[in-house]
């Protein structure tokens, strides 16, 4: 497999062509958050919404445009994390950042398990300029999740008061 094929693995190509979770639908949940991220080098952007119910990432919806790496990455993310616990979501985001910083080296088994299809992005880590592409959606997710949690807590406190 050439370095190029390592980067554009079949699973990435598939996600890029048929993205999961695309479409910026309204989300109803105990707490919701939305983040817009822009890669200023290339103009790629994503708007991503997250819904949180209790300890669960109950919904993810997004709209974006960009290269196959950025689009596939968001698609994989939304497939991977929708319905997961907040704890798993946090750990997965961290694992994905570690994968990007690993410069193409493989990670330990536990991390790989957490990442599932997202391990396919291992080849991207070799190209510093493309790491931003792969991370775009993940940064949006992290940001939106903080808001959603905040909104849920506020609602709970509001309810308590």
């Amino acid at each position, binding site marked *: 497999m050439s*370095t*190029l094929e390592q980067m*554009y693995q079949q699973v990435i190509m598939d996600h890029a062509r048929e993205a999961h979770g695309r479409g910026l639908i309204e989300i109803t949940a105990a707490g919701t958050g939305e983040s817009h991220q822009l890669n200023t080098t*290339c*103009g790629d952007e994503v708007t991503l919404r997250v819904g949180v119910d209790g300890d669960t990432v109950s919904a993810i919806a997004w709209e974006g445009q960009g290269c196959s790496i*950025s689009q596939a990455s968001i698609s994989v993310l939304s497939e991977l994390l929708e319905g997961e616990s907040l704890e798993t979501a946090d750990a997965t985001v961290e694992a994905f950042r570690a994968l990007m910083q690993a410069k193409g080296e493989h990670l330990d088994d536990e991390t790989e398990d957490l990442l599932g299809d997202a391990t396919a992005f291992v080849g991207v880590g070799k190209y510093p300029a493309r790491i931003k592409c792969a991370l775009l959606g993940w940064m949006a997710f992290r940001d939106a999740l903080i808001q959603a949690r905040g909104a849920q807590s506020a609602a709970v406190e509001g309810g308590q008061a």
Partner: protein
Amino acid sequence: MLPDLRDDFPLLARTVRNGRSLVYLDSGATAQKPLVVLEAEDRFYREHNGAVARGAHILAEEATEAFESAREDVARLVGAPAEEIVWTPGATAALNLVANGMLQASLGAGGPAADRFRVGPGDRIVITEVEHHANLIPWQQLAARTGAELAWIPVDDAGVMVLDDLASVITGNTRVVAFTHASNVTGVVSDVATITARAREVGALTVLDGCQSVPHLPVNVADLGVDFLAFSGHKMLGPTGIGALWGRSDLLNALPPSQFGGSAITVVTMETTGFLDAPQRFEPGTQPVAQAVGMGAAARYLMGLGMDRVAEHEARIARILREGAAALPGVRLLGPVGGDGTAVLGLAAVVVEGVHAHDVGQVLDDRGITARVGHHCAQPFHRRLGLTGSTRASAHVYTTEDDAHAFIEALAGVREFFGVTV
């Protein structure tokens, strides 16, 4: 015809990704440097480094001599007297020098001599829709700070400036027209004469962005008829960290400085400062001496090749790149193919239908081809064409026909790699 110059450029011998030889096609962003430039800088530091125009000792003398003779070399390249060449940190800084000087004038600096640089409500500043951010944002911000109105010469669907209705853009209240000599996206050389003629009719200053022209075409300021010309060292085979502004003497001596410090002054008290004449008035602080020396060497190298021959060489590369790209199915070439009377630079920016520029670039990079992807600092222009980015191959004196063919060949395989068939 230019000889094969690759041996003059040490970097071109290096290999990339998996030992492939390098096909450098990003000269529009920054050019590689010939040995004579590296050696000129190195020799300066090893033998003559000293403070310029600030001392009387032998190193100060030698450094001043090296610095000023480099100015003469760069002046010669654009047909200007040396005292009309101001060293700047780059072309971006050169364009800001004019815009910020006009801001200073508009706030009262420079006395009556600076009247012609003042703008405010009721005045118009004109740019074009094809501009690089470096010749767009300074004017946009000048307008925002002074209350002047910003207007622009539009481009058509092919990305070419529309000059039919020039009088309605460059109106009687226009004080300055800033435009590019050649587009860094389409490579099209502007109709400087037409724009300048209209600007002169209304008494507007003209500022030309020569970033893409000076390194690639014969440029003579006397022929151009503009008032200012900005260009950078690193794109004309010189060092980073240096550029130049040419301006007419009478204008340079009247334009208020906007960067202040030592060596640019006559008498300084706590309350007031007298400024030297140009070019020194715009060169406060320790000058980019080694970089000037390097840019001077680059100018000599280019003049040694002959700018006519450089332009001819690049026209040949342009043909391969542009005709080649235009002929590929599913590939859109930005701007006209050229060669039919439309002068174009040796570059091609393309969009591969269904494949994002980043992905195109990655396929090229894998083959050792360094093209540039993105908006090339021309967001409004790309937006006007309905795009966010493109992939650009750009040439210089060392670019071979093989390099250009390699780009076209790699481009031809992109859609297949990504399984795009529509």
